[in-house]
């Protein structure tokens, strides 16, 4: 693709931050991406969530330009960067790219790393580097350090500063927090999201960590076997998963057989209202453990406590229903726990979801 043809494409497409259209990719006979569509609004943060091997890293590498799609188009900031008319190499796509390991250049200081993507005459401007370091919550004193002298979290922040320095049209984050330990991960996440929000940068975050996706992203695209199976806001995804697989992947879920009649599902936990439209007849309902409430008295389905997995802030309580009606998991606050063997009454709060599959 020549430079002139690129310019022609510039005004071809509407100004979404990122638009991926019908992108497919196979390695040998194995399809990795199957006609993937994904749109990220300018300035938004979309998380691509999936288990390892689902194709999410491949999708990111196609957007970045490290790989070429077999078919389909990729548009960044209204400019087609991959498609039938040609492929733009990564260095011409104006992207920011942060990997799991950060991959700071070991032979350069922090300042030189941050300035790497700037035009030659701007590389020496110390205030630019200081601004960028401040943006990611690092002291300007870090500029002189070597990457090896930084902690993992600091390295990731510098990697983000380096990616943001050339003011990219989009930032691609490839599991940037997963090699950090739990404590660092929290603070690094906050710093990174704050910096991205401050610059209003369109961002794609690839992750396998549900809570990371739910807490950081404005939209989440769930990937499975090379397909995007659902794209929604975090709350929508949690409340209305398209199927049992997505529901279980996003958060723990209990599946119960039920019979639906007039938007009411009749199951072992009683008669429960159904969210959204539902056809009458036998079905499977999805109940979140946190919807199940243990009551000491009043109405409820009797059950006894089988065991308790305690996490501090809450606990997962496994309960056996009376008779042969199966097992239920409930999430209880950590400060009011039943004891094992105790009989309790169960109630369900809020509507339940019908499994479409």
């Amino acid at each position, binding site marked *: 693709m020549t430079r002139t043809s690129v310019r022609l494409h510039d005004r071809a497409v509407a100004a979404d931050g990122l638009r991926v259209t019908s992108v497919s990719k196979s*390695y*040998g006979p194995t399809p*990795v991406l199957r006609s993937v569509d994904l749109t990220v609004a300018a300035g938004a943060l979309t998380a691509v969530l999936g*288990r*390892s*091997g*689902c*194709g*999410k*890293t*491949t999708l990111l590498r196609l957007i*970045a*330009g*490290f790989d070429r799609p077999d078919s389909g188009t990729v548009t960044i900031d209204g400019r087609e960067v991959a498609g039938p008319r040609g492929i733009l*190499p*990564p*260095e*011409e*796509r*104006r*992207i*920011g*790219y942060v*990997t*799991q*390991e950060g*991959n700071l*250049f*070991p*032979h350069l200081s922090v300042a030189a790393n941050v300035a*790497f*993507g700037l035009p030659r005459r701007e590389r020496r401007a110390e205030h630019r580097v200081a601004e960028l370091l401040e943006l990611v919550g690092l002291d300007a004193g870090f500029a002189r350090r070597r*990457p*090896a002298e930084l902690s993992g979290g600091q390295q990731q922040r510098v*990697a983000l500063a*380096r*990616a943001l*320095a*050339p003011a990219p049209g989009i930032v*691609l984050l490839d*599991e940037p927090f*997963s*090699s950090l*330990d*739990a404590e660092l991960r929290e603070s690094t996440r906050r710093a990174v999201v704050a910096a991205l929000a401050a610059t209003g940068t369109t961002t794609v975050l690839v992750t*396998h*960590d549900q809570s990371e996706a739910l807490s950081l992203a404005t939209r989440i695209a769930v990937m499975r076997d090379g397909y995007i199976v659902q794209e929604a806001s975090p709350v929508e995804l949690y409340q209305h998963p398209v199927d049992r697989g997505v529901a279980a992947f996003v958060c723990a879920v209990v599946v119960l057989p039920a019979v639906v009649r007039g938007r009411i599902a009749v199951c072992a936990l009683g008669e429960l209202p159904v969210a959204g439209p539902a056809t009458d007849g036998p079905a499977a309902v999805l109940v979140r453990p946190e919807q199940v409430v243990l009551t000491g008295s009043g109405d409820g389905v009797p059950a006894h406590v089988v065991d308790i997995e305690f996490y501090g802030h809450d606990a997962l309580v496994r309960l056996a229903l009376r008779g042969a009606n199966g097992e239920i998991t409930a999430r209880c606050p950590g400060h009011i726990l039943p004891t094992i063997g105790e009989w309790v009454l169960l109630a369900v709060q809020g509507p339940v979801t019908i499994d479409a599959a």
Partner: protein
Amino acid sequence: MSRVRSRAPATRRRPYPPARLAAAAAVAALTLVPLFHVLGFVVAEGPEQAADLLLRPRVGELLRNTTGLVIAGCTACAVIGAGAAWLVERTTLPGRRVWTVLMAAPLAVPAFVNSYGWVSVTAAVEGFGGALLITTMSYFPLVFLPVAAVLRGIDPAFEDMSRALGNGPWSTFFRVVLPQLRPALLGGVLLVGLHLLAEFGALQALRFPTFTTAIYEQFESTFNGPASMMLAGVLVLGCLLLLMGELRLAGRVRVARLGSGAARTAAPHRLGSLTPLALTGMAALAVLALGVPLGSLARWLAVGSSTAFPVVALLTTTLTSIGLGVAAAVATTLLAVPVAWLSVRHPGRVSRLLERSTYFAGSLPGIVVALALVTLTVGYLPALYQTTALLVAAYAVLFMPRAMVSLRAALAQVPPELDDSARALGAGPSAVMVRVTLPLIARGLGAGTALVFLAVVTELTATLLLAPIGTATLATEFWSNSYSLAYGAAAPYALLMILISAPAAWLLTRESRSERLPA
């Protein structure tokens, strides 16, 4: 909380870039020319001719001498090298640093200088016993260095684990330490064996005929006789046997290098009352390997009646050696780049094959490579015969593995993700090369170049056969003087050889001491 890295399609097959593949294949083909020429000759001659040339009592004697020396020399080097490494790295032996240097230093004294040191003192070292002594003293560092490095690098946590599981110190040594040493030990012994097969100067001076010395004499007397090619064929077979033996024994064992230097150091074994004995042994080793050759060199320099300093001749010879060394070092390292890059960045069957073939070509004796190049150029490319270019080509074939090892290690320290990061930041492929890859592999390039330079400066056999008429190097001048018993006249050449090797050697020790760049 640790999670499995989700580099999902890590096994994605990246196609070989055609231009770089072609460059690597061309280099590998170049290195294989001598081997195929010798093998082709042997096959073309046919079994009858081969039997005619090989089934002679003289060949029987050569076979006995060569195999005897290889077996005894490998065993002696394994025992002495590994023993010294263990004493230095894992016991309370005083003076650890000094011993490390002294045990590595014999590598700086070429075997033919070592044997000159001995034979100019006493003729008693002629024959098998002397040959074994002198080659062992020259080559045991080839075992010492890798074994010491592994002993230093092994995470003592494994040994602690073994002790915790109820194994005593000896049982731990045999069940945990030795298996980890095996690849290094076998690799070192293989190098010793290949050096013994290729050794010419030291053995010729001791009048101990092996295949290599016999090929040289055959070549000198009859020039390009089929007999010398046939003997070269036998020598190639010997190399093959050694390489395959090592492959079989070492198997696919991989000993992971653990951490990058941060591992805890093991508590040393207490020598106690055995300390004097250990010190005496180490001192004796240092005297035999270093003291004798250097001492007699100094003696010949100082008091030898025939000592003369033909300044002009010394100067021009030194410049020739330096020039050849630099030219060959640069050419070899440049040639190694495409093969090393391909094998690190695109590991696969083809790249492995190309890389291996350069190693295999480099393990052939200098005499075989030289003989093949002589007969080839005389037969097909007379314009190249007796040229410096041909000599440099021979050096490149012989010493490419040295450059390759350094380059590979350096390239492996540059994760491809760095390329991705640089390109995402707007750097094109050539900018990535200049701003990221080259700065990161500069040290490896330097180390490879220094290693090749060191080898070229002390190379004797191929130089004797291939140097253009009138081109004399320090090694060949030293050799011709000492072989004609002008020990005093030879001494200054040996001294100069050591002096011009010093800067490169110093560079290398600095390289190995400096901390590794974090990956």
